[in-house]
């Protein structure tokens, strides 16, 4: 299920910790980075490599919102729509993503380019509205700015 590189990496992580359970989060990150999401098979495989019950891995993987349980597009947009961002026009940005890219919250564009997840606060209220694209952070978003930014992600 997991490719050899990933297994080696997980074993390397495992060796750094006193007990296998501690290596769960970093191991799940490795898998997500490689495959874009955590399929049930991948979750089970992580359990098998770490010798942690697969159900325990599932519990951890579903607890943290940064883990994805569906296949995602090449780029993940995490757009905040919490109070500060909402007041500063985040909902308008959601509409734009819909009209321009056909991108609804919690979905992926047909060409597999973008996925959108709306977030509850990413800690950038002072410079709202804000979003993350993959691991890059952008704030003070406007309609034009969001379009320009996204052009950099093919």
């Amino acid at each position, binding site marked *: 299920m997991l490719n050899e590189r990933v297994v080696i990496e997980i074993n390397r992580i495992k060796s750094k910790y006193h007990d296998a359970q501690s290596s769960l989060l970093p191991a799940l990150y490795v898998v997500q980075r490689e495959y874009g999401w955590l399929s049930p098979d991948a979750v089970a495989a992580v359990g098998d490599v770490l*010798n942690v019950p697969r*159900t*325990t891995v*599932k519990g951890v993987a579903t*607890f*943290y919102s940064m883990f994805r349980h569906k296949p995602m597009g090449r780029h993940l947009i995490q757009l905040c729509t919490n109070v500060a961002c909402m007041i500063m026009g985040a909902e308008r940005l959601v509409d734009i993503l819909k009209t321009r890219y056909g991108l609804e919250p919690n979905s992926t564009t047909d060409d597999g380019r973008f996925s959108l997840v709306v977030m509850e606060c990413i800690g950038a209220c002072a410079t709202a509205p804000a979003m993350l694209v993959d691991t890059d952070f952008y704030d003070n978003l406007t309609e034009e700015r969001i379009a320009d930014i996204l052009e950099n992600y093919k």
Partner: protein
Amino acid sequence: MITVTINGKKIQLEKPVTILKAASMAGIKIPTLCHHEALESYGGCRLCLVEIEKMPRLQTSCTQYVADGMVVWTETERVVEARKAMLEFLLINHPLDCPYCDKAGECELQDLVVKYGPSTGRFAEGKRTHPESYDDPIIVRNMDRCILCARCVRMCDKVQCASDISITNRSSKSFVEPFSGGRYNCEYCGNCLTVCPVGAIMSRMHKHAYRPWLIEKEVDTVCSFCGVGCSVVLQVRGNSIVRAVPKTGKGLNKGLLCNRGRFGYDYVSSPVRLDSPLIRRDGKLQRATWSEAFIYIAGELKRIKETYGGSSIAGIASGRCTNEDNYVFQKFMRVVLGSNNIDSAAGFAYAPAQKFFERIFGQGVTANSIHGISNSDGILVIGGDPTSVNPVLGLQIRSAHQKNIPVVTIGYMPGLKRFATNRLIPSPFAETALLAALVSELKSKRRLSDEKAAFARDINTIIENIPPVSLNEAGDVCRISPSDINNTVDAISNMTNPSIIIGRDILQRSEGHTNLLLLAALIYLLNGRIYLLSELPNEQGLVDMGCLPDMLPGVRPLAVDSFRRRYDEFFGVEVASEPGMSIVEMIDGANSNKIKALYVMCEDIVFNIPNSRYVKEALSKSELLVVQDIFMTETAQLADVVLPSLSWAEKEGSYTNLERRMQMLKKAVDGKGMEDWQAIAEISRMLGFDMNYRSPKDVMAEIARVSPLHKDIAYDDIVGDGFMWPYKGEPLRHGMSIEGIDIPDAKSLLKISDNDKIYAGMENPLFYSENLSRNSSALSSISPEPYARIGKALATKLSIIDGDYVNISADAGSIELSARVDSDLPENIVLIPNNFGDKGIFNVMNWKINPVIKSFVLDCTEVVIKKIKSAAEEVLA
């Protein structure tokens, strides 16, 4: 000394405990939800909040420890308000469908809301919803009701150690789920449903069939499935068992059960129970009255005894029957019929193993407390997976592992996979070489003390003479790397008083007797405590009652004149000094016409002995086959007379578990058969030998006089979780004799199995227990499909994947079943359980008799595996 004041009451404590505990010791009840006595504190529900003077905030009493001078109040206005608020939070998502919920009446949430709760909630938004899950045959999940106390998850994780469920998602969206999201596919112990305080996880067996307040009586009894002997309470309404529940914290199982003990009771009310005696007339079994049946049996037995002599009659007793039944049975065979041909399924492995160890180390050497396992400083398991043979005992090993106690497993044991510090899986039947290597290595590492030498007579001599086997030699034979063996040697040589847990597989080899000897050497060198896995609830009782061809009640050897004379004097007869036939010899005896009559009490020999076809043929040659049973078993179908027995829930009597603990069965419901001892007493009377017992109590009174081991035991003394050996009687403390024990030669230690051949092996099934589980709709619904377990390497070679259909054939026959592929299984063995009538292993497996210990040898069946249909084709069909 710590002094705390709770609600004005001063409490003195030796050592700090939680406030909750301190309060309960003082008789003050603090409400809880997430707390459970079988689990560690969690602090999740905040119902147990209390006010502590000088602490500004309320504290959870289940996690807060007392300190000297602490003043605690448990029911102040502030506390009560807080509890009310907590309950209001819990009710945000809880559906309050009490009228429809089976838990109502014994629901902890309901009780608390009645006591503290708000009458209405203020939360107007919708509730979290999940459809009720019927994915599992015997467990139903309703996650709407879950209050996220995590008791089930902690139970499954930390006590059952199966880790099959977890809390999925977070905050208000979380709920409890198995990995699949649907079916559990777990061990189905049901311990999670014991601890669920609400109706979120419940047994499906009695869904909507009862209300807790309609239960009319509760009967404390012992589980009828295996040799652990867990305490279980049968809840009864009218004449039916509503459910079987554990007693929290009580019994040797301390409130835990396995799937069989919890869900398997429904065989009692199976529609196919026998309800009338049957006599074969015109080739067909036809209904008859009890007296017709007794007259027939007595007449035939008399004729056969007079014509061929008593030794032409054989009797098979049962580990499912009580001590009283079995005692009366052996007396009937020996005293009334004049035959020592008495044995039972205990003769397959348990009794030979015990006899051997007692011969060397003295009586009672296997009578060790199950709780001792998790307190020993090391564990060695060989010959069977305890988590499936004796599940609640298996939990002790898992719990030991959690305490960092080293666990060494030898053999394929999926249930201990995550719990073994050293896991050795030798190639099929090659354990002998491995054991010999362990003995050789330990011999040089451990000096044998004189003191121990006195305890175990002459074993030193034996150990010195066992030919040395090197790690490399053993590694070659077992196909294990010598360094893995060496690591195991290191692990066990540090143990000072380990638990050595032995299953029957290790005996059922051509070298079974050698394995026993090597194990005895190991036990001696390691100063180990022996536990013999036992598949039947009263297997030990069979041995102790003298249902053996060579032992009298109290396990006194027949061959010793003084014991035999004592027995003779008691009954005024003369018992032959030659041992009778073992169960395996009886089958051959029937086949060669030496045995003319077989009396079988509650044992399905056709089903339980390999090569069913041969067994059937042998039985049909006998002139008389009498079967007492609760079901029309494969054996009963061949009988001349069938007598319906009572099941375990319908009668009284005692069982002796694998610790040699005697416990009582209590009658819960009425049945249509007759108690086994009683039917035998009736026949005995017709044969001119009166047995005037009115009840099992009278039988026990006689046992206490006849068996030196049971001296002075009174029936009424056996209460609660009973008592363990050595009772009040006279155990034979010292080893008897090692005379005649052959020292194995180097060749027999290093037999290499042929890598090109594939052998059939027996799977130790968790969900099955012979006839009982076959007739329990609950147990047979868990894993209803026959299967063969095949190692990954072999499967790849034959292009077999999980779910494919395979044909497995051998000289004795062939079967078709689906494959389960497992990477841990060695290449040249396929494991098949014996629980599927004509699709079980015994349709293909053959056996021999081990001439030394007279048990089965089951390592002799070569099979051919062919793939016949892929899983996908089967779906299409």
